[in-house]
């Protein structure tokens, strides 16, 4: 605690204005100041005595100062997220967002009044998971907080083994490509690269880093806690599309929601996106697909989903027909395995000489030689699109 904090404390308390925060209560009446903690009460203090008592209980005072001068405003998304980071219990928060990375029941939290226990933990570092981020908050001098952000896979890594970044905007480049240098158009895809850290961040900087890597997640998480998350379900979200996306409106024909179930399974599973899908078919028609376990909610079909839905609207307008293909049992299973490997993003992982793998390139090239004709028709069976 520094002099500025004590000065702020004495300035904040007048006959009219009390101060009460995280178990600290300071009031003033005609007899002087009253300084209260959960297990302490000092009354009729003059200003010098107040300063002395405050100095003897500096954790409470610096805690009040941090939350009132550094991290305000109380009730804002910023404030509540910073409280979440240092695991202050919030019994009003919905269960989805209360705990560790969306896990409601696990992970320690500290009662707001128990500042000493929280400070004790902050001395060692308090960690929270946010998507693939591990965010650690530690105490700096005079009760200021310092934050560190790294990939959750690097949570136990030696800091010297990670590239340390000082500039918040470096987070943009980190979030831009995956480990195979492929562009990441979906920021919440679970493909964030590791091997880096942002040390010594201020409270403003930690929010900037998190919001750069996962834009708008803090705001929507906060709205959910406040009970004001404005979910736009599939049907109204498609209904407002226009231009080249206007066609997606025709995919809904009032004949069930199977197509949307498939979209949610294909695009919104945790393997694809770390947001927890809260949108349904419409307000009255929930989807059966699992929404995922993410810490932060997804409040409407994203631009990637809309863009993919446009393509599906085109190809799903066709009726099914019967084709006859002749395949060996192994070939049938090989085709199924290839679909699986591509869908799971594993096709490029198959080793060149792993001929036991159905998606091995030579195995697939052999299959193509055997089963596809010069026009690329499977088993020589023409598509006959126009018939």
């Amino acid at each position, binding site marked *: 605690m520094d002099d500025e904090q004590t000065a702020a404390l004495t300035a904040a308390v007048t006959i009219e204005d009390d101060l009460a925060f995280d178990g600290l209560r300071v009031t003033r009446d005609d007899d002087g100041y009253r300084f209260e903690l959960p297990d302490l009460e000092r009354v009729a203090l003059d200003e010098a005595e107040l300063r002395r008592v405050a100095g003897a209980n500096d954790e409470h005072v610096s805690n009040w100062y941090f939350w009132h001068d550094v991290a305000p405003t109380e009730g*804002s998304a*910023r404030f509540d997220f910073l409280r979440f980071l240092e695991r202050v219990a919030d019994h009003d928060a919905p269960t989805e967002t209360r705990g560790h990375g969306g896990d409601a029941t696990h992970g320690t939290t500290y009662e707001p009044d128990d500042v000493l226990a929280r400070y004790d933990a902050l001395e060692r570092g308090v960690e929270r998971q946010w998507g693939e981020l591990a965010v650690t908050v530690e105490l700096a001098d005079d009760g200021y907080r310092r934050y560190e952000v790294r990939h959750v896979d690097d949570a136990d890594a030696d800091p010297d083994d990670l590239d340390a970044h000082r500039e918040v905007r470096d987070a943009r480049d980190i979030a831009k490509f995956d480990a195979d240098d492929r*562009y990441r158009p*979906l920021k919440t895809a679970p493909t964030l690269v590791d091997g880096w850290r942002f040390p010594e961040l201020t409270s403003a900087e930690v929010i900037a880093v998190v919001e750069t890597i996962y834009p*708008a997640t803090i705001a929507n998480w906060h709205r959910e806690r406040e009970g004001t998350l*404005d979910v736009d379900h599939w049907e109204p979200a498609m209904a*407002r599309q*226009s*231009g080249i996306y206007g066609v997606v409106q025709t995919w809904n024909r009032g004949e069930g929601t199977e197509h949307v179930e498939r979209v949610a399974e294909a695009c919104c599973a945790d393997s694809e996106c770390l947001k927890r899908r809260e949108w349904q078919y419409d307000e009255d028609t929930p989807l059966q697909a699992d929404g995922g376990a993410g810490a932060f909610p997804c409040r409407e079909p994203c*631009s990637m989903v809309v863009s993919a839905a446009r393509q599906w609207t085109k190809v799903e307008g066709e009726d099914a027909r019967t084709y006859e293909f002749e395949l060996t049992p192994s070939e049938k299973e090989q085709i199924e395995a290839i679909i699986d490997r591509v869908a799971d993003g594993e096709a490029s992982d198959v080793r060149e000489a792993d001929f036991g793998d159905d998606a091995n390139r030579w195995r697939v090239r052999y299959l193509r030689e055997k089963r596809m004709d010069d026009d690329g028709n499977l088993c020589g069976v023409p598509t006959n699109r126009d018939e």
Partner: protein
Amino acid sequence: MQALVIVAHGSHLNPESSTPTYAHADTIRETGAFDEVREAFWKEEPHFREVLRTLESDEVYVVPLFISEGYFTEEVIPRELRLTDWDPEAWESDGTSATHVTLAAEDVEKTVHYCGPVGTHDAMSDVIVRRAESVTGDPDVGDGFGLAVVGHGTKRNENSAKAVEYHADRIREMNRFEEVKALFMDEDPEVDDVTDFFESEDIVVVPLFVADGYHTQEDIPEDMGLTDDYRTGWETPAKVDGHYVWYAGAVGTEALMADVVLERALDAGADVREAVEYVRESTRAAATTEA
């Protein structure tokens, strides 16, 4: 508190589409003119839909990093930002004259000053000229030079061609270049025949596009005959039919674009006059260094 939101198209496929947006936002951040500066996209995140809620400021200036008035500025952006009572008539524009309109948004309690696109602001003419200076490395370029301002054309949006012609006219009136022409990709006068339209031996070609991409880095260079294959690159200047063609690439990558963004906010009432002066000077230094 006042915030600036630069809204741009972005891309699901091209990782560099948003690079100029971030660069201009960074330039403006460094001036400290706004408490918050945020980028938002149609195809990237934060999406138009969710950007306003990330701000703490009560006053928000939204500047579209688009070239012309049309589908995006009149329909998509206002709808996705949930601007209450938006009507394209509110801009009272003839196609290139939109300045700003002050509205509320449905999902936040903020005042939103929705500005016209950067591409139609008068200051854009200066950016085109600055782009010509950058590509030639000559801060006084003009004597003996022709300038072609290149746009898409009218097939998709007639205001797109209007914006190109508007700036070509303004730059012509500066009497700085020997000749100034508006050329198009998909209508006459076509950029393919660029050398037919100029008598000057040297021609600077500046595409009025926000970001470099397929059109500016593949189509236009090949159509003009700078190269047979964009992948092998081209000379600057490139000799074509007895002319030297100085191809500048998308005007939107020019550092001075940050000035146009600021001027849009200034016109809408933001307190950023000092920042405008700073950006004009600092980006000039950058252009000279680059050259």
